[in-house]
């Protein structure tokens, strides 16, 4: 009885809907554990792109390996292990980079390149159409930077560039 009462009292303070897990891009350092620690065979964490921050660089630090032999779409030149980034010429010298989420495994290699040397327009987020919404996110239990936190289900992303969120 007491259990029921206390639970109800606690629930009255809380939100109606379940909370979900999300990555704070300001805290994440792209350690790579997101790709390997999710309970799903292919992680629910994906790279997302804030085009408003992107420099559309010809030499993208997220797209090209630092020691790329040539600046073309050859697999040996690409940072992404699965070739999930699509590079499209827009106009000289600009290129557009889009993420194919069906291929992305959330390893964060591109994000690291872009954050360390570029504008930081690529970042990692839990995609809620893929995530199964574990009560305790398996990645959050290993994330060394405590970048994971619970967010309301009605607004479940921590967008880069949005007011108050990571820059």
């Amino acid at each position: 009885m007491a259990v029921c009462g206390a639970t109800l009292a606690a629930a009255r303070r809380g939100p109606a809907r379940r909370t979900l897990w999300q990555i704070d891009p300001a805290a994440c350092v792209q350690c790579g554990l997101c790709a390997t620690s999710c309970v799903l065979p292919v992680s629910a964490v994906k790279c997302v792109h804030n085009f408003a921050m992107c420099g559309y660089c010809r030499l993208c630090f997220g797209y090209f390996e630092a020691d790329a032999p040539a600046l073309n779409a050859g697999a040996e030149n690409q940072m992404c292990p699965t070739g999930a980034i699509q590079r499209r010429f827009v106009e000289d010298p600009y290129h557009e980079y889009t993420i194919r989420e069906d291929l992305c495994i959330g390893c964060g290699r591109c994000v690291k390149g872009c954050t360390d040397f570029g504008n930081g327009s690529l970042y990692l987020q839990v995609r809620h159409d893929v995530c199964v919404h574990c009560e305790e996110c398996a990645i959050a239990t290993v994330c060394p930077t405590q970048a994971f936190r619970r967010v309301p289900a009605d607004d479940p992303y921590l967008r880069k560039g949005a007011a108050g969120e990571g820059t």
Partner: protein
Amino acid sequence: MRPLRTILPSLATAFAAQASDRFPKPDFEAAYQPPAEVWPGAGTALGEAIDVALLAAALGLAAHLALGRRSRRGIAVLSVVCLAYFGFWRRGCLCAVGAIQPVAEALFRGTELPLATAAIFLLPLIFALFFGRVFCAAVCPLGAIQDLVAWRPQRLSRWLASPLTLVPPIYLALALLLAGTGSAYVICRFDPFVPLFRLSGNLHGILAGICLLLLGVVLARPYCRFLCPYGVLLGWFSRFSWRHLTITPEECIRCRLCAESCPFDAILPPQPAAAPEPLPTAVRRLGRILVACPLIVLAGGWGFARAGIPLARLHSDTRLLEQIALEEAGMAVPSVESDAFRRSGRLPDELRQSVAGRRRALGRGGWWVGMAVGVVFAARLLGASVRRRRDGYEPDRLHCLSCGRCFRACPVEHARLRRKAATEE
């Protein structure tokens, strides 16, 4: 000239400060529209309300099948449906068993408790208070998957079974302690069946699930009986339930067939009223119990407070601090985690504080939950020493999972159904 070593860091900070505009935004000549950003949502509030309503409906149906219709077949069918929906379709995360943990965290740490989670936690308990453990009978997917494989259940001898039934309260207390201190959700982390529902997860989890199912062939529902922490709560509510499933609504002829049919050993034999005990023996017995009870309570508190130290390692901060200490002592090479930690800008002091705080909370909380476990065990001891009269075979409300297997075994019940069929014709 300043050495490069001293310039580089300041250069790096200058560089980092401008991270978002190292490269100017382009001025496109042609009209260019960047691709639209997509932010897939996670269901709707209505969807969540429907989930809760489905759970309530399933519970209602289970109660009707177990207490009203008295149909084992109905219960079995409903349990398969619930296994398919709540287990394999929803992949196990609409789970009252795991919901213990956010509730504990909200109660002990003041975190937010979503209404949907509270409802999922409370509904089966409320039904248990009215009708017994009908959740276990037909709704819980963890129970249903074990029920399906219980082909050749063997009876466990008493000396093995009774100590094993002490495990679930311990597990419950650990789960409360670890969730209540924000250390870990152990019920989820060590859930043996959810990896099977999702067909993914770590290999250990999947193997544990398969082993438990294999064991479940000869030992019916091992997780339910000897591990499940939620089953403890359900049992307590069911113990005082308003109504409960009966083996037959008519008078028991003490044939013992039902007790043999119950794969969970949850049927209590008839028991004559206790013979009056000579006063001195009774006093001595009472004295022994009264001495034992506080000792059990203290031992529980002490044991749990001690357990907090190794358990703290379930939290990543503790592991990280240990790893960093090893590295500083030159006994380990940097790991992915410690490398990320150093790049994150979090200070080792912050880590030390978080770990020390958690240790303290685990120690303090350990005393409380440990003593609570002690009280539960002491209550069992007291309960075992009072003999209550029972006229016929009865389901043990604490452990009966309301599966309805005993209906078919009872000859009185067969006769009743035949009579009923005859009058209906």
